[in-house]
């Protein structure tokens, strides 16, 4: 469970070249390449020169802002017991006043508040081994904001991209809107199926441009809960080098890993530590992190780490589309992170992971109790907050035929085993329980017997009752 351990015994650190800037010109979309810089934001640097009297930007005068002080109480990451603090001594009070407050209330940089950006870069150095030569960090208004901008920076209409199936439902509308060709790559209990990925690439039609990107959620994936094994990660990285595609590593649940085994290293880290005899260079991984699951989703702070050329294009998008992530949220996060330091941050995320482990253990107990008798099949997750469950749906629930279910490479094997969407809408809801039908997690909206069950917010009584109702519905 320790973070930052050596990814694999067989690897060693050797100097590897970073891919040259020119490498990315064939990846960047037309929109990214033709976007013009904001004429005002591009002059920020000039204004900061010593002795210069600035009359350039339209920043409001902070003296007109009404806020005088902001005070936060924060739980100590080292407090004993559960995540609920036991006493006042476990609480630290953080004041945001003076220059910190003025900064929090004011416009800031497109790539985020510089001090927070620096803090996060240091974390990425320690955690994933990046260096200033091969990567930088940009902060977004949540990692969704950055995913949207990363896809927009890379994908032209008609381009192909690869997405693991099933996948995070929230990313589907983002890539749909870019009108690209989406190739689904199968997954199993170990993550992305290497045979599916390799076959897709080997059988790629002659003359057709290869997919530009593989999108994957490697820890506690939404919806499957699967953490991709180290072996699979190495296979996928090898294929990325061979077929020259980028890996978008969307990792909001990285810090929510609570498995017994040593945690596998990130793609970002593996790219730097796994020797490539052919020296094909570092710079194919773009990683997305988030404070949403460990600090507060309502802050809207996430960050991306990876090749500067892609991040520059994303920052250009930010500077026209929404200027910057919220400064206030960033200063709140920064003050807490500075107070804790990286050791305190690690202590905090370990507590968070333990909290979800406790939830998972309880949920597993009720899963066994109510669905263990042949009503469903599942793999117990080692991270995050989801169970991906194949329901043994009674034959009385007829398959609804949806027009868009017959596309793509699915052999419709699942369809023969039941339609969880109809089951949820008719049987489960009538029986007083709702879960997410698996069809939402497939780009092609295929029929499936799977559902996603989330356990993060439930207490034990709700787990017991919710799963009891689901089992009742399955028996009806």
């Amino acid at each position, binding site marked *: 469970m320790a973070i930052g351990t050596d990814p694999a015994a067989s690897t060693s650190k050797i100097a590897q070249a970073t891919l040259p800037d020119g490498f990315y010109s064939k990846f960047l979309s037309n929109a990214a390449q033709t976007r013009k810089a904001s004429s005002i934001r591009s002059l920020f640097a*000039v204004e900061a020169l010593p002795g210069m*009297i600035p009359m350039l930007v339209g920043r409001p*005068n902070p003296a007109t802002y009404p806020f005088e002080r902001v005070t936060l109480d924060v*739980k100590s990451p080292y407090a004993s017991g559960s995540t609920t603090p036991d006493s006042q001594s476990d609480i630290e009070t953080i004041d945001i006043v003076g220059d910190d407050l003025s900064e929090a*209330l004011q416009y800031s940089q497109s790539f985020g508040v510089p001090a927070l950006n620096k803090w996060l870069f240091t974390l990425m150095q320690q955690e994933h081994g990046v260096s200033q030569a091969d990567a930088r960090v940009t902060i977004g208004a949540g990692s969704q904001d950055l995913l949207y901008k990363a896809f927009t920076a890379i994908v032209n209409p008609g381009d192909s991209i690869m997405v693991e199936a099933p996948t995070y439902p929230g990313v589907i509308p983002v890539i749909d809107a870019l009108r690209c060709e989406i190739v689904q790559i199968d997954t199993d209990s170990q993550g992305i199926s290497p045979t599916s990925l390799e076959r897709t690439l080997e059988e790629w039609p002659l003359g057709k441009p290869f997919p530009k990107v593989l999108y994957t959620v490697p820890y506690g994936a939404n919806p499957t809960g699967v953490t991709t094994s180290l072996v699979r990660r190495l296979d996928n990285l090898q294929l990325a080098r061979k077929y020259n595609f980028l890996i978008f590593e969307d990792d909001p649940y990285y810090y929510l890993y609570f498995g017994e085994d040593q945690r596998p290293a990130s793609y970002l880290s593996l790219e730097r530590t796994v020797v490539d005899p052919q020296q094909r260079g570092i710079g194919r991984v773009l990683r997305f992190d988030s404070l949403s699951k460990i600090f507060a989703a309502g802050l*809207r702070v996430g960050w991306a780490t990876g090749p500067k050329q892609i991040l520059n294009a994303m920052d250009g998008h930010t500077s*026209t589309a929404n200027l910057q992530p919220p400064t206030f949220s960033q200063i709140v996060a920064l003050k807490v992170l500075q107070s804790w330091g990286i050791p305190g941050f690690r202590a905090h995320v370990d507590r968070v992971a333990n909290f979800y482990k406790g939830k998972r253990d309880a949920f597993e107990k009720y899963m066994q109790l109510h669905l263990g008798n042949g009503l469903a099949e599942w793999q117990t997750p080692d991270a995050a907050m989801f169970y991906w469950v194949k329901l043994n749906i009674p034959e009385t629930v007829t398959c609804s035929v949806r027009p868009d279910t017959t596309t793509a490479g699915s052999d419709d094997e699942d369809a023969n085993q039941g339609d969880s969407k109809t089951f949820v809408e008719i049987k489960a809801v009538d029986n007083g329980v709702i879960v997410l039908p698996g069809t939402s997690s497939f780009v092609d909206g295929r029929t499936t017997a799977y559902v996603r069950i989330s356990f993060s917010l439930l207490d034990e009584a709700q787990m017991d009752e919710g799963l009891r109702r689901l089992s009742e519905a399955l028996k009806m």
Partner: protein
Amino acid sequence: MADALKYLPESYYTRYLSEGAKSRKPSPIRGLFPLEATPGVLSLLAGKPNEETFPFTSMNFAVRSPLDHSVDIPITLSPAQLAKGLQYSETGGIPALCAWLNAFQERVHGRKAHGEGWRLSVGSGSQDLIYKACTALIDPGDSMLVETPCYAGVIPIFQGLHANMVEVDADAHGIKSSTLRTILENWPQDKPKPKVLYTVPYGGNPTGMTASLERRKEVLELARIHEFIILEGKSFEFFSAKLRTDLTVPDDPYYFLYYGDHPRYPSYFELEQQEPEVGRVLRFDSFSKILSAGIRIGFVSGPAPLVQAIDMHTASANLQTASLTQVIVAALLEKWGFETFITHTEYVSAFYRRRRDVYNAAMEKYLTGLAEWDSPEAGMFFWFKLKIKEGEEDSESVIRTKAFEKGVIALPGTSFIPLGAKTAFVRASFSIIKEEDIEESVRRLRDAILEARKEAGVV
């Protein structure tokens, strides 16, 4: 006014929506929310993190009283407010803030939040909302009308969408509605007419000018005849709130220095109620100049189908505006109430008006005969024309070389011309500059202009 306002039907807007907006799919999870809300249903649906794992246990803040700046008002977020602020929240803004803003729009613009076909949505600053509105309306090659000069920050949005920008000149009385009429009446028959007009009718950036009532009415009439949507850009109108004589604030000597000499003209959003039907105005507001830019909160008000298209974009692109800053603003506005908020905006107006006056005095002292300007009635900018030599229409080289060398930097006017033509105008911002530096900065500008004139052979 008739008691029931007639508004355009939802189907009317289909013709305006871009291909991207029309094909955008709803979030599959959010579509299940109505089922989740069924009474008695236990939900195992939401992928929200558990708030117990968040490190924050309480939050409070203090604001200056707008009535007496020596008094701080403490505000503590309730446990429910804090929980709301830390968690994921609604796509279009948290209900508490939306409710306050709906009441605000009704007070300020006379528009009722229900039964008039419009609604509002909160975004991550008004730039976020303008970007999404334009994306919802403009397909590549579509024509749009852009008031010129225009806020430099939105031009890259129009360029990025490959809009065919048609400039509409503005002068000291705002957008020239007669020019707009000429453009539209001579529009080529075989070419689709512009879908939208982008205009900032009050305290425009960069010019600080305000569109007259007659021009506003004519623009609305043209919008009806030629069927375009008015994007009423973020403005500084709060800064020229009407003079109030019912307040005494002894420690605030410039309190009564209201900004602007006219009464405030009604917004397009308000004025359109005098049209045969409403539904052609999409209005953008921002808290960046009044409460804080770093909180990133703006809001859009207008036809429900267009606001819906913006929300659909948000749902996929960035999910929502930050919950925490929304909760803080809602708590502040609820504490203050409408009147106190207005009083605060009047204080802000007075602050900028005083700076305007100091700056104007320096301009008169050093730049008389060397530049031309209208003193702004709102906002934080002077927009002035350099007089280098007859026929010289380029401020950029003077600013980027001579002024820069002399230690002062302002923004060359060409940044504000959508199609990028050269111009002798310059925008100077007086918001941040220290008051004691104002005179020196204008003196440096004078030196730069004199040097340029000398080189051009003008004595």
